[in-house]
């Protein structure tokens, strides 16, 4: 008789099988993930969650018999006698498919972890472009302190550690101190009594022998500084969130923008070890703010889009050298801009911003159900469209409903040929 505690055994024996299953069901699950994510808040989406895929897609067929005459023995007869008839639609024949039941396949629900979910959601997305993508995937080795070791090269001796250990050893082994010996020597010199003197001399001899036996610094005290090489990501990205907060931007529009930024953030986070976010909000002048202020701070005024671009340009110049950083920008606006600002905006974009950006996304947000939105193109939209037709790497989309955020995002970052990206609207 054995009683064994298996609770400490590693669980998750099914993990491998589960991954195989997900791999196989990938396209189905992906579709389900997208569908699910449209119905939910971004935050919830990033928490992972339950998806439903049609069981049919993962069906394992067996030979099954159906139809024909059926016989069954049931318990609980209350009133029937031999020869009675039961109505088909009623009890006892519940398994007959009634109208509406048809042969609809059962759906199959299960829960995806946060990582699985985001992975599947972002799986067929890709950072658009570009030259720096290669850098983005390589890593260089960096060196990092990693405690102390007992062996190493002399140049790495840690003096303070070594001395500290030596002292501890000397105290523990009771090595006579210099003061102690000197004191004794002085006492011998001053001493007149011969007997006492020879006694003290013997003691001095003993002390000296002891301090010779216990060296000031022993090889075992020596400690070397240890270094470790760690992969140091070169890959880093900065994301500029530019948002118009002038009076015309409603809460709904800001919400749409925020969702877009969050997605972009999660997406970049997957690709880079370091992602910085810079929030710039602007009215007729721009300022860099923290997230809270960015989304919730009250601000109002006229609109000068160029101010934000100017601010971005300056920040890039100061802090994010385009040689080291992958720069992304997403601009959300309702599309209003002062008429006089158009030319400056266009110039800033073409000359300063776009050349250093991996990707520039322009998101035009509109009111929910906004029909007026589609009537005529806004001044910004017209301007950007002109730039894009001129070959600038700009992507632009219009959004007016929450549920459109995911598809639009997906659309913008869909894996595709670079050539197509340029050609396609």
């Amino acid at each position, binding site marked *: 008789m054995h009683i*064994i505690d298996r609770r400490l055994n590693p669980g998750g024996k099914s993990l491998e099988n589960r991954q195989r299953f997900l791999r196989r069901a990938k396209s189905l699950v992906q579709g389900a993930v997208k569908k699910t994510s449209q119905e939910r808040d971004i935050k919830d989406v990033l928490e992972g969650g339950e998806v439903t895929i049609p069981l049919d897609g993962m069906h394992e067929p067996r030979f099954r018999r*159906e139809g024909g*005459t059926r*016989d069954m023995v049931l318990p609980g007869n209350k009133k029937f006698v*031999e020869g009675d008839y039961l109505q088909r639609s009623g009890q006892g024949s519940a398994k007959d498919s009634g109208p509406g039941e048809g042969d609809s396949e059962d759906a199959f629900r299960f829960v995806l972890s946060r990582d699985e979910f985001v992975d599947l959601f972002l799986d067929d997305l890709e950072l658009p472009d570009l030259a720096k993508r290669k850098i983005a995937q390589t890593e260089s080795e960096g060196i990092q302190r990693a405690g102390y070791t007992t062996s190493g090269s002399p140049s790495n001796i840690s003096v303070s550690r070594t001395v500290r250990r030596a002292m501890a050893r000397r105290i523990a082994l009771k090595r006579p101190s210099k003061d102690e010996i000197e004191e004794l020597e002085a006492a011998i010199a001053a001493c007149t009594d011969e007997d006492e003197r020879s006694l003290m001399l013997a003691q001095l001899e003993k002390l000296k022998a002891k301090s010779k036996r216990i060296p000031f610094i022993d090889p075992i005290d020596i400690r070397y500084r240890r270094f470790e090489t760690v992969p140091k990501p070169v890959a880093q990205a900065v994301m500029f969130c530019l948002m118009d907060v002038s009076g015309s931007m409603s809460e709904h529009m800001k919400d749409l923008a925020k969702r877009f930024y969050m997605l972009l953030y999660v997406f970049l986070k997957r690709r880079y070890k370091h992602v910085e976010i810079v929030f710039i909000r602007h009215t007729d002048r721009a300022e860099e703010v923290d997230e809270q202020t960015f989304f919730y701070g009250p601000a109002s005024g006229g609109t000068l889009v160029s101010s934000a671009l100017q601010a971005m340009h300056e920040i890039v110049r100061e802090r994010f050298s385009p040689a080291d950083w992958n720069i992304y920008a997403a601009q959300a606006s309702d599309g209003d801009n002062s008429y006089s600002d158009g030319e400056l905006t266009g110039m800033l974009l073409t000359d300063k911003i776009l050349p250093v950006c991996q990707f520039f996304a322009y998101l035009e947000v509109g009111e929910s159900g906004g029909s007026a939105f589609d009537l005529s193109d806004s001044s910004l939209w017209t301007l950007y469209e002109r730039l894009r037709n001129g070959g600038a790497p700009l992507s632009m989309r219009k959004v007016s409903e929450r549920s459109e955020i995911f598809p639009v995002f997906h659309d913008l970052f869909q894996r595709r040929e670079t050539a197509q990206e340029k050609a396609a609207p």
Partner: protein
Amino acid sequence: MTERLFEGADWDFHTLQRITDACEEVAKNDLGLDVYPNQIEVITAEQMLDAYSSVGMPLFYKHWSFGKQFAYHEASYRKGLMGLAYEIVINSSPCISYLMEENTATMQTLVIAHAAFGHNHFFKNNYLFKQWTDADGILDYLDFAKTYVMQCEERYGRTEVERTLDAAHALMSHGIDRYPGKKKLDLRAEEKRAGRRRQHEEEVFNDLWRTVPKGAAKSKSTLSLERRRKLLGLPQENLLYFLEKSAPRLAPWQRELLRIVRHIAQYFYPQSQTKVMNEGTATYVHYRIMTKLHQTGRITDGNFLEFLQSHTNVVFQPEFDDRRFSGFNPYAIGFAMMQDIERIVTRPEDEDREWFPDIAGKNDVMGVLRDVWANYRDESFIAQFLSPKLMRQLRMFHLHDDPEERAGIRVDAIHDERGFRRVRRELARQHDVGYIDANIEVVDVDLSGDRRLILHHHVIKGAQLNETDAKRVLQHLADLWTYDVSLIEVDANDKVLREYVVSPRPITAAA
């Protein structure tokens, strides 16, 4: 006053040991059970879920369908749709019982009595298990299977292996020898043989043979129909066996995979034929043991009440018009029949003497039960021992549903003098696996012609195959056979009802 086994709900490993010893004493001395050595393992809920998805086995080869099972169970468990079983028990020697850590001390006692003694005795003594399963070898064999599948994946690629296993799984329920005649499986030897086969193939492989010119094709028309069928062992209802032996273009490792799936299917075959008996036995045993422990004061009244509550839930049988009804509960009917046999043996009425002259009033309850447990399966057990009294008690009745019949579903027999035998016969038939599964067999191969494989489905009571599924399974079959496959559904008068013809997918033919 005897010492209590435990107080309250908490337990530790000493408690488990005391409980097992106490149960063993009752099981051996009072019930005369004969069991494999026991191994009891305590596991967590998550591990229980793991175990579910590999048909309860502690080790199993990797396949996506087990992952699907897992995802499915996990989701319904998390949502609270499904409770976990208290225990899983494995037909192996030593007999392994998994207990959940969440169980209270009372529940652990119940589970140990149920699994480690009830199921264990049944596994060791029932003739079907003796005939078909190799309790000593199964764990080693599963280990071998797992490694073998893994090696195949490394050598031939995961996709290829998956394709073969998918096909084998689709045919799994038709990979069983239903009738004894061959000797019982010895899985350990099987594993060794597999190793030797591989070794032999490697040793005798000589590239030169590929260069030997093939002579003109021999005339095959001389092979008479009878002789051909005999050579191929036809008709053959074990489709996996047939493919393994005769499919012309399978690689040796593919044949080995088919063999693995077939052996595992065969191992589980007795379980599907003895659900009622197996659960009935285990439930009867735990009931006897718990009662005895209570009588001798080893568990308290409170513990016993807790036990009774679980026990009652387990043996609850909803009536047919109850929303909870989903067929007969094997625990309920099994336990009821075991108790009924006890009644017939000790306190028979005239009716029982007439129906069961062999056992009525024999007074040796355990002797009779042990004999029953050893020598019957669900179908024969019900056909033999379902008593009129129990049929009355459960108010059983027999319905006949003919789609042609306009008036509705006919009540064919009820629990009265005229109906007893008919109800009993019908219920027994419903527990006959051979009757429930479609009766499909390979009848011929046109070896001289287009090598088409011909199968027959013998339709019973007009129940034909589900078309979508049948096509998919046949697709798998054709992929393995690598030539056309046709399945003909014939009724009792050999009238053809429907014919399927499926061609193999090119990708496998090229492999």
